[in-house]
């Protein structure tokens, strides 16, 4: 069962185009997706996933399960960076540990999208409110990361003058990816409620085109991820192992929570993926500003160079196999 899931994932266009991008770097082809095209695709994906999530959210009633799930998601976004920090302190200083921990507490929207596509192939439903969970899990880890630095680094070489809390909260809640995702989600809710024709007219753009655009973007992500691999040699074995084992551990936490909350199979997979994935967009940008002492190549190369590929290639089918093993097909929700 599990091996067929792995294969089904490996042979999907999305993952194959990711591999093609990796291969381009490995064999030294001059294939590249010049800036700002990757930005076009990432803005498009955020806008579409937000809008469609909002539309679905509007159609589902706001029952307690929704609120509890979202609460659990936010709890994970606070808990995970604390655990990660504790693990990372074995090897790294406070600054690097806090920054890497924040990345793993936050999420990767593209990993989420890839998991959603995977569910669609398996014809397993998931709910629109998981997109709200996605949006709400981006920010807390950023704040936790900075709190860790403030609390643990007193006097430990924190020579730099500190960024104010205002700037940090701004960065956490108004960075472009959170802003566009939440904004599109709210627009989706409003449009679904008050202008159903609008939903229809958006469909070819936000719906039909979505999977192809994801593949194109993953081709670029493959190139970018492979380019980061070189940095890893500098980072050392500890970080490489961390970047593979930590997602597995976080996914297990996510599975336990999903079981407790009686999430459906689809939602459970997405919850695990949110827990397991690490940010390489919002968090690095925030950490660069708030913890300039941390070395960006550590948190970017581990989250983008290892955890991201690991999750979309092996993680998703593996988590799905666990879901099928531990979550009953006909869940309450």
């Amino acid at each position: 069962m599990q091996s067929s899931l792995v294969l089904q994932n490996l042979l999907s266009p999305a993952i194959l185009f990711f591999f093609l991008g990796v291969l381009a770097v490995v064999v030294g082809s001059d294939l590249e997706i010049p800036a700002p095209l990757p930005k076009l695709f990432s803005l498009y994906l955020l806008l579409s996933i937000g809008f469609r999530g909002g539309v679905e959210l509007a159609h589902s009633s706001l029952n307690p399960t929704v609120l509890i799930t979202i609460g659990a998601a936010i709890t994970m976004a606070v808990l995970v960076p604390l655990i990660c920090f504790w693990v990372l302190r074995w090897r790294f200083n406070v600054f690097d540990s806090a920054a890497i921990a924040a990345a793993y507490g936050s999420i990767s929207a593209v990993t989420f999208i890839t998991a959603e596509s995977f569910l669609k192939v398996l014809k397993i439903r998931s709910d629109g409110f998981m997109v709200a969970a996605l949006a709400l899990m981006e920010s807390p880890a950023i704040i936790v990361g900075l709190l860790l630095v403030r609390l643990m680094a007193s006097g430990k070489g924190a020579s730099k003058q500190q960024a104010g809390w205002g700037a940090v909260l701004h960065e956490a809640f108004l960075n472009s990816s959170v802003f566009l995702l939440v904004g599109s989600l709210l627009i989706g809710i409003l449009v679904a409620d008050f202008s159903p024709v609008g939903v229809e007219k958006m469909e070819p753009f936000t719906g039909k085109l979505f999977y192809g655009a994801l593949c194109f973007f993953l081709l670029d992500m493959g190139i970018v991820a492979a380019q980061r691999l070189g940095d890893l040699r500098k980072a050392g074995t500890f970080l490489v192992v961390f970047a593979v084992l930590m997602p597995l551990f976080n996914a297990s936490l996510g599975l336990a929570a999903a079981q407790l909350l009686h999430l459906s199979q689809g939602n459970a997979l997405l919850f695990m993926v949110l827990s397991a994935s690490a940010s390489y967009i919002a968090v690095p940008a925030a950490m660069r500003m708030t913890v300039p002492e941390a070395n960006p190549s550590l948190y970017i190369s581990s989250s983008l160079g290892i955890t991201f590929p690991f999750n979309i290639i092996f993680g998703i089918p593996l988590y799905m196999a666990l879901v099928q093993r531990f979550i009953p097909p006909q869940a309450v929700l």
Partner: protein
Amino acid sequence: MKRLDLILSERELDKLLEALDAAGAPGYSVMRHVTGRGRSGSTVSEGMEFSGLGANAHVIVFCEDALLPALRSAVQPLLEYFGGVAYTSEAAPLL
């Protein structure tokens, strides 16, 4: 007259331009999407431009020699906190 070349992450570009405005720069020109490698060895590549880290920006200011100290104090805190380089050279108006 002097020519000032500032290269830093485009994440801090707005802050830098505000600082230049406040310090009385007569004007400036900005080139974005600049990549490069710094003293720390960290590379800014086009591939990462979609991510939150962005690319670098290159800001050029032509100004009177007398303005240099003011510009220096304006950009110093930013460059020290966030990294980036700043160099001056001699320039003369063509017209």
